[in-house]
């Protein structure tokens, strides 16, 4: 019995030593609507990397090529206290900065287990959407998918009340936080309100928007008739006119 205990202590010491790297990587399964007219949600994997204060939330690179909407969110990187959002509108890479948002969280009754971690439930209203999240106190990182943050534990599941956006952790591991100097090279800067405005414009008439921004009308012509996609409206994650 004693030997068993000694072994157990030794094993736990091993675990201890291996876990010294504070960098954490969480892969989220994400289901979301890109446009309101979309019959079925798009599915992708996003990875969150946390190292100290710095976080990055990026679409899985294998899927990026095919996903027009793949976006990245960086917090405290490259500047402290600032959140950088990077995405594309059509083919144009675009980014904006804002202060890291502060969320008003309300704890709710109910718990769940996600990825083997016991989770607590909380809710917040943020820019026109109500988010329900499950976070774990066993992972004391105040971070989460997309822009969500500020809870005492890591958010392992988040969904908005309309069901337009769902993130569920599917992999938690020790990871490296990779910095790429080229991350923000040749990326047009904009602001959040302009980004939303441009996104709405783009979905209304993608080829018109392309022509306006690049001078090339990216459209298909058949027998002298231009095939125009149906105007659509983006399914926005945040609405600036609402709190």
């Amino acid at each position, binding site marked *: 019995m004693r030997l068993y205990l000694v072994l157990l202590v030794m094993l736990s010491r091993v675990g201890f030593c291996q876990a010294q790297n504070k960098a954490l990587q969480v892969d989220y399964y994400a289901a979301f609507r890109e446009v309101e007219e979309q019959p079925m949600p798009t599915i992708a994997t996003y990875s969150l990397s946390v190292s100290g204060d710095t976080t990055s939330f990026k679409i899985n690179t294998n899927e990026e090529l095919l996903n027009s909407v793949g976006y990245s969110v960086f917090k405290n990187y490259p500047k402290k206290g600032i959140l950088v959002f990077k995405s594309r509108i059509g083919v144009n890479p675009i980014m904006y900065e804002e202060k890291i948002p502060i969320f008003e969280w309300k704890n709710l009754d109910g718990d769940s287990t996600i990825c083997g971690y016991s989770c607590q439930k909380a809710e917040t209203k943020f820019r026109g959407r109500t988010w329900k999240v499950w976070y774990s106190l066993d992972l*004391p990182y105040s971070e989460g998918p997309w822009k969500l943050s500020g809870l005492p534990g890591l958010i392992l599941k988040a969904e908005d009340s309309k069901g337009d956006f769902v993130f569920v952790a599917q992999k938690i591991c020790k990871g490296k936080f990779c910095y790429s100097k080229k991350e923000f090279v040749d990326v047009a800067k904009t602001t959040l309100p302009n980004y939303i405005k441009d996104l709405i414009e783009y979905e209304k008439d993608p080829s018109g928007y392309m022509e306006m921004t690049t001078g090339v009308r990216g459209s298909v012509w058949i027998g002298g008739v231009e095939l125009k996609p149906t105007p659509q409206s983006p399914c926005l994650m945040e609405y600036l006119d609402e709190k």
Partner: protein
Amino acid sequence: MKRETAILAFFTASLFSFAQGAKPYSGHVTDVNGKPLAKVSVLLLNSKGNVVTFAKTDSQGNFSITSPEGKEVSKISFLNLGYARQNIEIGKFAKGDKTIKMEEKVQEIREVEVKPEVFKIKGDTIAYSVLGLREKQDRTIEDVIARIPGIRVDVSGQISYKGKNINKFYVDGKDMVGDSYAMVSKNLNADKVDSVEVLQNHQPIKSLQGKQFSEAAALNLVLKDGVKLHWTGTAELGSGMFLQSPWHWTHKARLVEMYFGNKMSAVSMYKHNNVAEDMEREVMGFAMDYSDQGQLSNIGGIGTGRYGFNNSHLFATNWYFKIGENSSTRLQLTGLWDKSTTHGYSERTYLDIDNGAAVVENRNASSYTSHWKGEWSYSLNAAKMYFRNELVGNLAFDHSHSSTTLNGKNTYERVLPRKRSFSDALEINLPSKDGFNFVRSTFSYSYLPGRLLLYNGAEEQLNLKSATWNTKYTRSFSFAKYYYASLDAGYNMERKNEFVSYNDTTATVFYHEDKVYLSPGLQYNKHDIQASLGCDMMWLSRKFDTDKDSRWVMEPNVSFTWKPISFWEWRTDYRHTFSPSGFYEVNPLRVYTSYNMASSGTGANNHSSGDNVSTSLYYQTPGFGWNGNIQYSYGTSHYNTLYESKLVDGVYTRNSIDESSRSVSQVIGGGIGRSFRSMRTRLSLSCNYSWSNYDIMYQGVKTRSKMQGLNSGFSWSMRPWKIFNFEERSTFNISKQSSAGRNTVYRSFYHSLKFFLNPGSWQLSMSGECRHSPDGSEKFNFYSDAALSYKTQKYELGVTCKNLLGTNKREYRSLSVTGSSYSVTELRPREILASIIFNL
């Protein structure tokens, strides 16, 4: 003792009341050296350990937190990455030191990788998210169900799980369509379902739950919130044509309406097509039909798939009402009309006829089907009582005719196999403290008046009346932990009366069968082991005209199921059976079953008996990972009736003789599959080998014969990119027949490959199918289809082009127990169909 309890109660009460009011707490957090710690999470927890509220320390390490009004608070907790968590009783904190010193501790990360979006396991239920399973080309919920590991949906739509047919198909927990579940599974849009739950080992009768083990699983569809409480449906219109002569207009129409409410659920539909889509199974149900199917059948039947030239109309309505908390009633009415034509050539060679004479037929047949079915059921399924009554009525007015060339001679075929049947099933279960009392009684009556034109121009009239009444009482009780004893007592009655008339023959024959039985049984049911032992002891009395036979019969059986861990399952069972020769085997009258086939029985009440052993091992992980199974079964049957066959003027006649034979059949098979998370890859490999030894009469001598079959298959599906996926399937079959020194072997391959390209709302699918054989038993054949559609939330527009290469016939050879045949079947020509579907 009382005093201590009182003090404790007072203390707890005061602590509780103290915790109820809103109260502010503040303090200071530092590390062991007294350095203030910023951004430390300070949590107030209730007695369950749930967070009531939280705050963070400021840059000076100070915090202030207020417990919300009316919330119970039992602990205050301090949490910071890289430091050991501290939990302090709130009372202790309020009275004690307000400076918290946190010790450094490396945070251990438990590395995990799961795929929670695909499935969730809760007890015996595995819930699969539709979102996680579905590929973009999946339209109905059946397409999604077929992707669940362990589930097989056969061509007719019947669903099985781990090799056993499902026993219930629920929609939001309601048994709304009974066994006609294809009505829902083949018509409900997958968009409307949130998840599919597999309820393993499901006992549908509440009062038997925990008292009688069930091996079968049930499925439950969990609908999305927006689908309930209003009518939802689909409307489709399609029109097209054959692109090869003769020109032909093709069309289809569909209107399906469904309502899923709390008190009432309904499905109603009208469907029509002449594009060879199978609809029969959607309304006919999968449960065993009580009525005898008779000896006559339509020529060809309803044509479906590549071979069918049909024109079908279907109407079905099903209403489910919840009457009380546990009671419900269901009414279903269905009607099916069809006119199908078949064109085909066949050469049949009989093994049991001297010189292997062949029957050559060239057939141009038209068959008309008109089936009506009504079903009403009432059930009370409560924990204290179960009552169910089901009434089913069937009507079939079929007829078919054909201009046929039989061995070069022109003949005309006509058959009218009419059917009327009615059945009622009653079940009552009353649980007792230690077990249950179950009564099941079924009654069925069928009348099958049939007419058949014979090869010589005469007409056969064949009217069969049959009535059966089966009643069984089961008493089961538990006599020790995990042990149940049961006793079945029952009476089965069967009466048959057949009138046959053709040429100069006119006769009526009667058959009576009565069975009284007592079956003691013993069951052991612990969560990982289910074992049962039983023996049916019966008194069987039969009478065919003047021939009487009465005897005692014993049928022992034993079964064993072991689930060492939830992913493994081992089943094995043995059963001895006694089968009285059925009416058709006994009946000495020569009865024509088609214009050129007749058979007659011994006139004596013979029987056969058999022993069957089977064992199977399953391994199944619910989501991604491995799954596999191995099965073996051995069956032997003694005293089988032997027939002597003759071919006269192209008419194949079988007469039973006074000799019997023994047959042995064995099957060994298995499969292995793997699903990968990466690119949603699924691979599976299966192989089955079966062989049977039996006797046939050849040149008046009992000749030992053997049939062997090997079926192997491989399938591979993958989604390399979000917008592209494919499905590949290949099979290889060998069949071998050995008899009287002659060996015939046929080998054939089948391959199918489907590509789906789904950019945005568009979908393009291409498929190719190929059949070939190294020995010419299957002439090389290639078919290809293509479809393009544009889908939005409200509608879908599509164009389908089938048989792009215009392959016009399939030529193949096949083997059966008594012979071999060469067939040429005409295929539907190249055709195009444009359709529009609205989601209502």
